[in-house]
C-alpha cells in the first residue's frame, strides 16, 4: 500500500487531470446540444424543401465541426490519463469503470464518427432522408457517449453493484444494472445533457442576437432564435428539475459534499437555503481547518430541509456533525470512527496478504469468509478509504469552492430560464429587434453559460475530495508512481497546447460567424 505519498505528485496529477477535464468540458456541452439543434433544423429543411433551411443547417453544422474536433482531442487524453496518472485507481476499479468506457467506444463513438462523415461529406452522395438520419444519429451518438462516461463518474461518487476481491485487491462488478441505474448516474446524465442543450441554445441565441444587432442575416437569426429559444427554455426547466433531484440524491449519498455546497457547518432542523452569500474565515476550527462564516447572506428559511428531506422540519446535518458524529438518535458516525473501521478493514486485508504469502490455508479461508460477511462489508469495508486519512478534517472538501461554484451555477441556471423565455416571447411578439439591450444581454449570456457549465463540474469533482472513489479510495492512494517532475512537464505541455488550440478554435469560430451563412464555408 501507499504509505508515503509525494503530495506534490498528487497535486500535479490532480492539476493535470483537472486541466484536461476543464478543457474537455469547454467543448463537449456545445457538441451535445448543437447536434440536436442542427438535427431540428435539417428536419425542417427535409419537411419543407426550403433551401434556406439547408443553408441554416450547414452554417451551424460548420460551427459544430470546429468544436467537435477539439472535444475529441481532449477526450482521448482524458481516457488514457486514468491509466497514466491514476494507475492504482485504474486497477482498484478497472473491473467496473472499464466496462462503461469500452461500451462508450463500441456503442457511441463509432456511431458518432461514422455518421459525422456522412453529415459533412454526404450532402451530394446520399438521399435527403439518409442524410437527416445520419445527423440524428450523430446527435444520439454524442449524447450516448455522455451516458457511459457519466455512469463511470457516478460510480466514483456512489460506488454500487460491486464486491471487493481480496485476492486481486480490487472491486469487482456483481450487478451491471445497479451500476447503470445508480441514482447518481441517472441524475447526473439527465442534468449534464440538459445543461449541454441549454449551453448550446444560449450559444445559438447569442450569435443570432449579434446578427440582429448588426442588421445582418435576419432570416437566419430569427429562425435560430425560435428553435434555440424553445429548446433552451425546455432544457433550462429540465436542468432545474434534474438539478433539484441531483441535490436530493447527494444529500443521501454524499452528505459532506451537500453540506459544503451550502457552507452548512452546524446541522439543523428547518434549515434554510442560502440564495446568496459571501464567506470569510472565522476563528473557529474543525481540527486544523478554519470554519467559514458568512459576511452577508440571503437565506430562504426551511427550504434546504424541504429540498433535501421533503419536510420543513427535516434535519440536515452540517459539516461539524458529519466530522464529529453524534451519538443521539441521529447516530451519525464520526470520521474518527470511520477511520478506525477503515483501518480494521485494511488490517484484515494485510493479514490476508500475509496468510497467502506464508500459505496458511486455514487463515486464508477464514479471512475470505470475512470478506463475504455482510456486516464486515457494510460496517467496515465501506470505510476502507478512511484508513488513509491522517486527520478527520481531511474528509472536508474545499468549502469555499463548493459553495461559490454551486451558487454561481444555480443563479445562472435561473437566469438562463429568463433569457430563453424572454427571447421566445419578444420574438413572437415581434419586438425583439427593438429591444437592443436584451440582444446584448443574450450575447453576454454565452460566456456565462460556459462559466455555469464549468462550475458544475468543478463542484462535482472538488466537492468529492478527498475521495477519488467516495469513502473507498482517497486521491492520494490512487496516483501513479512517477516523478512529480514528469507530471509537471506534461502539465505544462498540455497547458500550452490546449490553450493554443483553444485560441485557434475561438478565432476560427469568430471568423466563421463574422463571415456568416451566406458565403460558402470559407477556406484558406
Amino acid at each position, binding site marked *: 500500500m501507499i504509505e508515503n505519498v509525494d503530495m506534490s505528485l498528487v497535486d500535479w496529477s490532480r492539476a493535470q487531470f483537472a486541466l484536461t477535464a476543464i478543457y474537455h468540458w469547454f467543448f463537449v456541452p456545445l457538441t451535445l446540444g448543437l447536434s440536436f439543434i442542427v438535427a431540428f433544423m435539417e428536419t425542417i429543411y427535409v419537411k419543407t424543401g426550403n433551401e434556406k433551411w439547408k443553408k441554416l443547417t450547414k452554417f451551424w453544422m460548420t460551427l459544430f465541426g470546429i468544436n467537435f474536433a477539439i472535444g475529441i*482531442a481532449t477526450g482521448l487524453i482524458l481516457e488514457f490519463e486514468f491509466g497514466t496518472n491514476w494507475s492504482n485507481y485504474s486497477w482498484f476499479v*478497472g473491473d467496473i469503470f472499464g466496462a462503461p468506457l469500452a461500451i462508450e467506444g*463500441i456503442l457511441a463513438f463509432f456511431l458518432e464518427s461514422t455518421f459525422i462523415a456522412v453529415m459533412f461529406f454526404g450532402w451530394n452522395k446520399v438521399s435527403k432522408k439518409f442524410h437527416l438520419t445520419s445527423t440524428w444519429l450523430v446527435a444520439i451518438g454524442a449524447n450516448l457517449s455522455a451516458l457511459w462516461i457519466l455512469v463511470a463518474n457516478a460510480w466514483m461518487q456512489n460506488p454500487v453493484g460491486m464486491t471487493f476481491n481480496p485476492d486481486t485487491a480490487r472491486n469487482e*462488478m456483481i450487478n451491471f444494472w445497479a451500476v447503470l441505474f445508480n441514482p447518481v448516474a441517472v441524475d447526473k446524465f439527465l442534468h449534464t445533457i440538459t445543461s449541454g442543450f441549454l449551453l448550446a441554445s444560449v450559444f445559438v441565441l447569442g450569435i443570432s442576437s449579434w446578427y440582429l444587432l448588426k442588421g445582418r442575416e435576419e432570416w437566419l437569426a430569427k429562425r435560430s432564435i425560435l428553435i434555440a429559444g424553445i429548446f433552451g427554455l425546455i432544457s433550462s426547466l429540465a436542468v432545474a428539475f434534474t438539478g433539484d433531484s441531483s441535490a436530493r440524491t447527494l444529500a443521501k449519498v454524499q452528505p459532506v459534499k451537500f453540506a459544503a455546497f451550502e457552507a452548512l457547518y452546524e446541522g439543523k432542523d428547518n434549515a434554510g437555503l442560502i440564495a446568496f452569500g459571501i464567506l470569510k474565515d472565522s476563528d473557529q476550527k474543525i481540527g486544523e481547518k478554519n470554519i467559514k462564516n458568512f459576511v452577508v447572506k440571503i437565506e430562504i428559511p426551511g427550504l434546504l430541509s424541504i429540498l433535501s428531506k421533503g419536510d420543513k422540519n427535516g434535519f440536515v446535518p452540517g459539516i461539524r456533525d458529519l466530522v464529529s458524529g453524534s451519538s443521539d438518535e441521529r447516530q451519525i458516525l464520526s470520521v474518527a470512527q470511520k477511520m478506525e473501521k477503515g483501518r480494521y478493514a485494511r488490517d484484515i486485508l494485510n493479514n490476508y496478504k500475509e496468510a497467502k504469502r506464508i500459505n496458511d490455508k486455514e487463515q486464508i479461508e477464514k479471512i475470505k469468509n470475512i470478506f463475504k460477511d455482510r456486516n464486515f462489508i457494510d460496517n467496515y469495508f465501506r470505510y476502507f478509504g478512511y484508513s488513509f486519512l491522517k486527520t478527520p478534517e481531511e474528509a472536508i472538501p474545499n468549502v469555499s469552492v463548493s459553495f461559490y461554484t454551486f451558487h454561481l451555477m444555480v443563479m445562472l441556471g435561473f437566469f438562463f430560464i429568463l433569457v430563453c423565455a424572454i427571447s421566445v416571447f419578444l420574438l413572437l411578439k415581434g419586438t425583439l429587434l427593438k429591444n437592443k439591450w436584451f440582444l446584448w444581454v443574450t450575447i453576454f449570456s454565452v460566456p456565462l453559460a460556459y462559466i455555469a457549465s464549468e462550475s458544475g463540474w468543478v463542484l462535482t469533482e472538488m466537492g468529492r475530495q478527498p475521495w477519488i472513489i467516495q469513502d473507498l479510495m482517497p486521491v492520494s492512494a490512487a496516483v501513479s508512481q512517477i516523478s512529480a517532475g514528469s507530471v509537471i512537464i506534461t502539465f505544462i505541455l498540455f497547458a500550452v497546447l490546449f490553450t493554443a488550440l483553444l485560441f485557434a478554435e475561438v478565432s476560427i469560430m469568430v*471568423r466563421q460567424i463574422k463571415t456568416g451563412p451566406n458565403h460558402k464555408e470559407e477556406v484558406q
Partner: protein
Amino acid sequence: MTEMVSYLFLQQYWWIIVSLLASLLVFLMFVQGGQSMIYSLPQDDAKKTMILNALGRKWEFTFTTLVTFGGAFFASFPLFYASSFGGAYWLWITILFSFIIQAIAYEYRSKPSNVLGKKTFDLFLFINGSLGPFLIGIAVGTFFTGSQFSLNDMNHVTWANPWHGLEALLDARNVALGLAVLFLAKTNGLLYLINSIDNDDLINKSFNKLIINSVSFLVFFLFFLITLLLSEGFAVISETGIVVMEKFKYMHNLVQMPAVLFIFLTGVIAVLYGIGLAIFRRSRKGIWFSGSGTILAVFALFLIAGFNGTAFYPSVYDLNSSISIYKASSSLFTLKTMMYVSFIIPFVIAYIWYAWKVINRKKITEEEMREDGHVY
C-alpha cells in the same frame, strides 16, 4: 469447473477482441502513413489538399479505434492498462500527444484565422503521421521484448527506471517493429491514395514511392520476425502461474497453434500480393489485399503474444510480475457482461462499411471537394 472453463473462454474471447481492435488500428493507420508523406508526395498545395481530404475523411475511424482499443483494454485487462500506462508514462504520453495534434489539424488547417497557420497544422499532421505509428510499434514491441517493472501484492506498478517507457527505444527489436509499422502505414497510405484519388500525377508519384516504402517495410518486418522467432519468450506455467523463459517460445506458439500460423501466413501473403499488384500491374485495388492482410497478420501477432501460455506484457526486471491474460483480466461477471455488448460489433462494422461505401462512391477530385463544401 464449468465456471473456470467459461472464465478461461471469456479471457481468450476478450483477447481476441482486443487483438482484432489492435489489428484494425494498425490497418487504419494508413491515415498516419499518408500524413507522413505530405511534404514529399504532392508537388503543389492543391495536391496536398487533395491528399489530406482523402485521408481526412477517414481520420476519425483511426482515432475512434484507438479510443475503443484503450477502453476495451481497460475493461477487459485492467492490470495491463494500469501497469503499462501508469508505468511506461513517457512512451504513452508521447503517443497521445501526437494524436491530440492530429485531431484538430484536419478541421483547422484550411480555416481562416486559425492562429497557428496552415503550416503548423500540416506539421502537426506530419508529426502524428511519423511518430504515431512508429511509437505504437515500439509499444507493441515491448509485448515481446519485455519492460522493466514490478507489481506489489496490491498489484500496484513500480517502474524500475526513470525513463518510464522511453528505454524501449534502445532495443533494436522494438525499433525494427516501430519502423516496420511506420513503413507499413506508409505503404497502405499510398495504396489507399491510389485507390481513392482521381489525379494522374498523384497516382503515378504514389506508385513510384511504393517501392522504397514497401521494401523498407519488408526489411524491418523480417528483421523483427526472425529475431522474434529465434528469441526466448515469456512462458506462463499453467499450474502455478509462474513465468519462465522458454527458448523459441514464439516459434513454438506458431507451430502449436496452426490456425494462427495459417492466419499469419495468409496475412503476410495478402500484404505482399496487394503491394505486388500495385507495383507490377499498376492496379488500384492493392489496398484491399494489403489492408486485409495487415489485419490478419497483426491479429495473429497479438494471438502469439497472449495465447498458448504466454505473458503478453512481460517484465524483464521481475519475471513474475509479467502480465498474462489470465492475471490481467477483469472478473468473470464483467467479461460476461461485456461479451453481450460485443455482440453488436458486427452491426457496428456493417454500418461503418455501408457509410464508408457511400462516402467513397465518388473518387476525390478538386471538383468533388468543391461540391461538398466541407474542405480540410
